């Protein structure tokens, strides 16, 4: 029998290009903050889920095992779940099944990423995500796949680079109000357009930065949650989907895997008209066009119509459906798994009315967080309600 699951506490560290803390220490800091926020200690936690992206960043094989002590997993049922960049939002999804299945009443979910140890640049780890026989010999970089997808998206729907740049302007601007943010800034579309081309059409300011950081949430069964807090945030829908390995055989203009993941989560949460029922969205925005792509996959904008949302103000923090009020990965930073979890934390704080300067104007009751990953391949989605 499925049980209802609530988020009862959240925490996160600063997101920075390079942190003094190890991955274990970052995990501990975020977990401790989430426990304190929920008024719990580790003794109250029955199971632990940890999320982290490639082991290649740290150069530690079986990274999940290495992180156990920092994540509070010693002596507990502990799992590391992993779907590339989708891991951050997937970590609370794994927590959800720990609790919803009836096996455990409380679950600590920690997502960390320590990208800085890899030299000369964290990007190098992404070389090994490509097919070892057919793609790596070409000298691949992760930026290729994004720029190829962005170009196809622009081509199919006649979208201009300037329209996409509005997302970077919005998110970096929102991040100014986020105390953990790495790259909050008031910039203009012109700034984005004039920034250095990296992998055309992708320019420096279209991209989120590599970072170190961690974020965590505490999940509890309905019965436990109601004892501990008057303000549970219900994790009412979860979904995830993977598309084929063969990304060069796919429609790069539309993320069907996000659509499928969203529909799974919406069905579980009983959401019939997402655009009307969802008040806040935190789609994954490692690149500015990705926010648009994902809004369309999430059924929050028609195909090719997402750029209008920022331009017309709908997705601004004071708009009708704020998108990435946190500042997103573009502004807060992109420690991969931690960045996805940061989005879940943001929804939690927004729905509790605790987001301070970042609090959205509208009265918000339903939020969706989403992450993406792999070879343009995986969508992970959570729906939360106050």
């Amino acid at each position, binding site marked *: *029998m*499925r*049980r209802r699951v609530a988020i009862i506490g959240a925490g996160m560290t600063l997101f920075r290009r390079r942190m003094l803390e190890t991955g274990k220490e970052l995990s501990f800091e975020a977990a401790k903050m989430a426990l304190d926020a929920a008024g719990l200690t580790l003794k109250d936690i029955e199971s632990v889920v940890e999320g982290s*992206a*490639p*082991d290649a960043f*740290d*150069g*530690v*094989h*079986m990274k*999940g*095992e*290495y*992180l*156990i*002590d920092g994540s509070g*997993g*010693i*002596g*507990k*049922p*502990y*799992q*590391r*779940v*992993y*779907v*590339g960049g989708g891991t951050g939002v*997937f970590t609370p999804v*794994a927590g*959800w*099944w*720990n609790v*919803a*299945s009836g*096996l455990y009443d409380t679950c600590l979910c920690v997502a960390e990423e320590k990208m800085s140890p890899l030299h000369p640049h964290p990007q190098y780890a*992404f070389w*090994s*995500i490509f*097919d*070892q026989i057919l793609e790596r010999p070409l000298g691949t970089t992760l930026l290729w796949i994004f720029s190829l997808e962005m170009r196809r998206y622009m081509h199919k729907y006649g979208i201009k680079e300037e329209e996409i740049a509005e997302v970077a302007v919005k998110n970096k601007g929102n991040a100014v109000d986020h105390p953990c943010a790495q790259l909050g800034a008031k910039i203009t579309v012109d700034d984005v357009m004039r920034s250095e081309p990296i992998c055309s059409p992708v320019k420096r300011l279209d991209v989120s930065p590599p970072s170190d950081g961690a974020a965590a949430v505490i999940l509890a069964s309905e019965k436990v949650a109601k004892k501990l807090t008057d303000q549970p945030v219900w994790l009412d829908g*979860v*979904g*995830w*989907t*993977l*598309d*084929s*390995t*063969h990304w060069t055989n796919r429609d790069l203009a539309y993320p*069907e*895997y996000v659509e*499928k*993941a969203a529909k799974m989560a919406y069905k579980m949460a009983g959401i019939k008209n997402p655009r009307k029922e969802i008040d806040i969205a935190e789609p994954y925005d490692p690149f500015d066009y990705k926010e648009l792509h994902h809004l369309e996959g999430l059924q929050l904008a028609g195909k090719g119509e997402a750029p209008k949302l920022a331009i017309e103000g709908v997705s601004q923090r004071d708009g009708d459906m704020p998108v990435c009020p946190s500042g997103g990965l573009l502004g807060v930073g992109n420690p991969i798994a931690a960045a996805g979890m940061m989005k879940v934390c943001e929804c939690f704080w927004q729905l509790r009315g605790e987001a301070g300067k970042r609090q959205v104007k509208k009265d918000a009751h339903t939020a969706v967080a989403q992450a993406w*990953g*792999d*070879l343009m*391949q*995986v969508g992970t989605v959570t729906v939360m309600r106050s």
Partner: protein
Amino acid sequence: MPFKIGIVGVGYAGFDTMTPGLSTRELMFEAASRAYADAGIDPRKDVQSFICCTEDFWEGISITDEYMPDQLGAVLRPLCTVSSDGLVGVATACMHIASGLADVAVVESHSKASDVVNPNEIMSFGFDPVYNRHLDVDPRFLAGLEMTRYLKDSGTKREYCADVAVKNKKNALSNTRGVYGTNLSRETVLASPNAAAPLTELESSKVIDGSIVMVLASAEKAKKLGDHTVWVRGIGWSSDTPVIEDRDLATAAYAEQAAARAYKMADVRAPVSAFDLAEVDDTYSYKELQHLEALKLAAKGKAGRMVDSGSFDRNGKLPVNASGGSLGVGHLLEATGLHRLLEAILQLRGQAGQLQIPGARKAVVQSWRGIPTATGAVAVLGN
């Protein structure tokens, strides 16, 4: 309500020192096709969740789930990696089913160890980069440390560890999947070169290639899927500290904790008399003894003597690794737990051929993730 989730299909491919003709993906396709045929399902329609248990460095790919969906029939379906042993994947499938996410869930894990040129170095990358990795030795030094401490604390005779290797390699001679089956004397095992003293090479399992796929279903759905269902009645998994200096190296705390959870779920009160067979991790000879004691299938310090006296032989009081275990069949990296499970399922189905233990109805299965971890899982099965 008692816990009850069905395993309705099994399939495997490989089980050889090398599988040079097939890519990992092709090997998985073979195993998965057999498991789906066994369960009588179409993965494109009937499965709501797919779980793969893999580690990036074993695959040589960052983010290995990228390369998993197509050959499992999982394209545009929920699929995820659980970076752990296959038995933890089974636990995940059980949670997906118990939470109503899925009626049918699939778990896959594999070893393509023959693709890896320097497996010892990769295993060494698992050690703490600051505190432990500077030791430029065979990563099995940790097994040597554990074994020494186990022998001392438990008062177990050194020879009894060798007896585990003798028993399991002999059992594997009757197993069609067994790669390292052989008849050896205790003396030969003891005289083989040191892997990490006191552990010898013949007491240290060797990796093989293989892919194993399991199809799980809810109790209701299982009724409609074939008549070979084996039930998971309890499942637990646990991890001790990753800091190896902090561990009690004599005992397998993770297995004790995992067993306690699985036994509680399955209402097993007297493990010694609860099972018709056990398949436990025997990556190294002493590990089988440690694990038998952690699972309360032998009293503390008594497992070795019981191996010596034949209690755990195939025709003994409680057959342990009648399949030949990892020492006899070969070690399958993260698929090792699924291999233990596979052998137990075939026994409970009465499909174990020459290995068959007459009247086998209840089994316990246990896994360990290998060096340098202290993570393992336990499942209680019934038919």
